[in-house]
């Protein structure tokens, strides 16, 4: 076995492994402003360039350039920056809280903050996201109460999900945030179904699906593409390509040629790639896609090119499979730093105000955490009522479950 000179299959490998010095200087990143802005009713097949390039607005010097550079007001940009900072702070605190045994698990979005926060600004009231576990930015972008998020993370007695769900698998209908599944990919086609329902209902609402690069390999990615391609409902399908699944780089998910966006293009679906660390660019393409969907011009797939700078979750140690400094070497930079630079350049922000905002935000998050901890933590007492595990599985409890609940009460 294995005695042929060159095996007729390949197992893709990332360029760098622990111990290597990562160097992405050979990676060609398109210049900011270089990709055209197509008309809303563009024929998907004409987006070939958009599915292979990267739409970018923010130049290295912080200037916003090109045809996509428009749209957000100063207030929105400032609030976006602030929300990204809040999310980053929340992440850091919750990772610490997990280490302290206050919860079992946490998933950070370090380095990817712009994606969900900029995207959400393009949606309207009544629209619905079908998020993954790494899309908390969709809530933070709407100033969802941090304390409530933490109540869920701590599985305490004020946890809106009654302790049932793994931390970060939030649900917030009023915020257009569908209950997050622990199973990868499933929600992608559900988003398509929700959008079909909006169309059937004659409303002008739209749905947004979310999936990770690694999870595009799952079957439901395909169902979503097939249904979106056939019925063309008002849905935006977001692929967050943060380069890594858990320990596997995107070459394992994608093969070593093409792009994930190109897969959608193969289905005749409009597909664009965007610099996911460029707040302005994410928002611009989101707005474009939202407008298409709103007007009934069909689905859009957005591939957000970003980098997962943290561990996959608190259960993960990325240094076991990639160079420690890889995230610094990553050519698209830090989304917070980039927006900050842009705002400073425009005279809307300064290093001082940034430092001040950072400490304010720290206080805000700490205060929320204190409040949440008063309601209890996973192992620190104050958990939701145990017998409640029988409630709300069905609207009406069937007899066999009523009997189990009675039996269980012997242990309370």
């Amino acid at each position, binding site marked *: 076995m294995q005695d042929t000179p060159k095996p007729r299959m390949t197992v893709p490998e990332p360029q760098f492994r622990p111990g290597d010095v990562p160097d992405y200087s050979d990676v060609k990143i398109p210049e900011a402003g270089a990709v055209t802005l197509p008309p809303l009713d563009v024929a998907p097949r004409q987006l070939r360039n958009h599915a292979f390039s990267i739409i970018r607005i923010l130049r290295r010097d912080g200037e916003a350039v090109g045809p996509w550079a428009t749209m957000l007001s100063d207030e929105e940009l400032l609030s976006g920056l602030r929300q990204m900072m809040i999310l980053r702070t929340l992440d850091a605190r919750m990772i610490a809280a997990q280490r302290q045994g206050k919860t079992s698990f946490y998933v950070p979005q370090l380095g990817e903050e712009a994606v969900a926060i900029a995207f959400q600004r393009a949606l309207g009231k009544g629209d619905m996201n079908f998020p993954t576990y790494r899309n908390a930015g969709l809530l933070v972008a709407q100033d969802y109460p941090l304390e409530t998020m933490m109540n869920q993370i701590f599985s305490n007695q004020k946890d*809106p999900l*009654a302790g049932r769900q793994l931390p970060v698998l939030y649900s917030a209908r009023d915020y257009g945030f569908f209950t997050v599944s622990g199973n990868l990919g*499933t929600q992608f086609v559900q988003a*398509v179904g929700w959008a079909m329902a909006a169309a059937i209902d004659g409303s002008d609402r739209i749905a947004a699906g979310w999936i990770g690069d690694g999870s595009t390999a799952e079957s439901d990615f395909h169902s979503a593409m097939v*249904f979106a391609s056939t019925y063309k409902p008002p849905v935006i399908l977001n692929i967050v390509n943060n380069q890594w699944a858990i320990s596997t780089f995107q070459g394992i998910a994608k093969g070593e040629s093409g792009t994930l966006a190109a897969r959608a293009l193969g289905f005749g679906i409009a597909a664009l790639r965007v610099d996911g660390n460029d707040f302005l660019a994410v928002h611009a393409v989101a707005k474009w896609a939202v407008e298409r969907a709103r007007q009934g011009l069909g689905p859009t797939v957005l591939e957000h090119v970003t980098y997962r700078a943290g561990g996959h979750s608190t259960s993960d140690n990325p240094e076991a499979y990639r160079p420690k400094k890889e995230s610094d070497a990553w050519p698209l930079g830090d989304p917070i730093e980039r927006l900050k630079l842009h705002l400073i350049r425009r005279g809307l922000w300064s290093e001082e105000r940034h430092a001040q905002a950072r400490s304010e935000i720290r206080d805000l998050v700490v205060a929320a955490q204190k409040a949440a901890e008063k309601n209890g933590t996973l192992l620190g007492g104050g958990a939701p009522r145990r017998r409640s595990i029988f409630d709300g599985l*069905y609207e009406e409890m069937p007899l*066999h479950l009523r009997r189990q609940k009675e039996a269980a009460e012997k242990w309370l």
Partner: protein
Amino acid sequence: MAVMQMSMVEAVRNGLDVMMTRDPRVIVFGEDVGYFGGVFRCTQGLQQKHGKLRCFDTPISESGIVGAAIGMAAYGLRPCVEIQFADYMYPAYDQITQEASRIRYRSNGDFTCPLVIRMPTGGGIFGGETHSQSPEALFTHVSGLKTVIPSNPQDAKGLLIAAIEDPDPVIVLEPKRLYHGPFDGHHEREAMSWKGHPLGEVPEGHYHVPLGHAAIRREGGDLTILTYGTMVHVALAAVEEQGIDAEVIDLRSLIPLDLETIEASVRKTGRCVVAHEATLTSGFGAELAARVQETCFYHLEAPVGRVAGWDVPYPHAQEWFYFPGPERVGRALREAMEA
């Protein structure tokens, strides 16, 4: 309410039509269900009557059908989808068992999933291993699902309407061998039609057969038969042939299960046989036998017997050797009586 003679296909179709007419949220889709009206014709005419956005064809993607339906249910519609054969539900098993069943629970009621999945089930049409399966036990093990299975047109429509109006996901298994007539397992005899059968008389309008209520098809004092779907007719035939005064309970709804009716009957008769077409091991009959012996132990004069499909894939040519027909049920009844 006016009553009409209907086959089970007609009853299903009529139930869908009644609900689509009453409730604009009810949407019907699946493979070949739109223009053509379904390979078993259960959706014939619905697209023409209710429009292409209310009844339509889908790509051949069972996971897509159920996944999309979950999204629609979360939106507020009432999707009622068809899986062409129960044997083809497996690609959708993840969406059914890990998603639909848990939307309400995991979101603590923030979202719900009122969704109906219809699928023709069971054998008896020379369909071989991929057109004959009875996968009900694969649903009953999953918390958060309801599973029903009618044995006649009246129940088929009434259970379907109850399922569509149910706030939670319901699997409706339709015994395909009963679509056009009752079938007692005597495949060597001429096929029967629903015409003239009292349960082929179907009220025309809106009515329910509530989920969780079994029907006693024959009262009896000597032995209780727990069964459902096609096997109800087989059991009735076996009882007559054996001349045993058995009580035949048509469960109709597996989850929720009518424990009270079951227990009252077994406590009365002291003997119990469970019959289904699905393979024996880990079939729903195991759950029934386990429960009956748990709750009725001191009333039992014999072990709870099980008669079921053999533990092999449904063979094509040997279908009638595989099918637990009236002889095999009859033998199980005699064994239970003689024990």
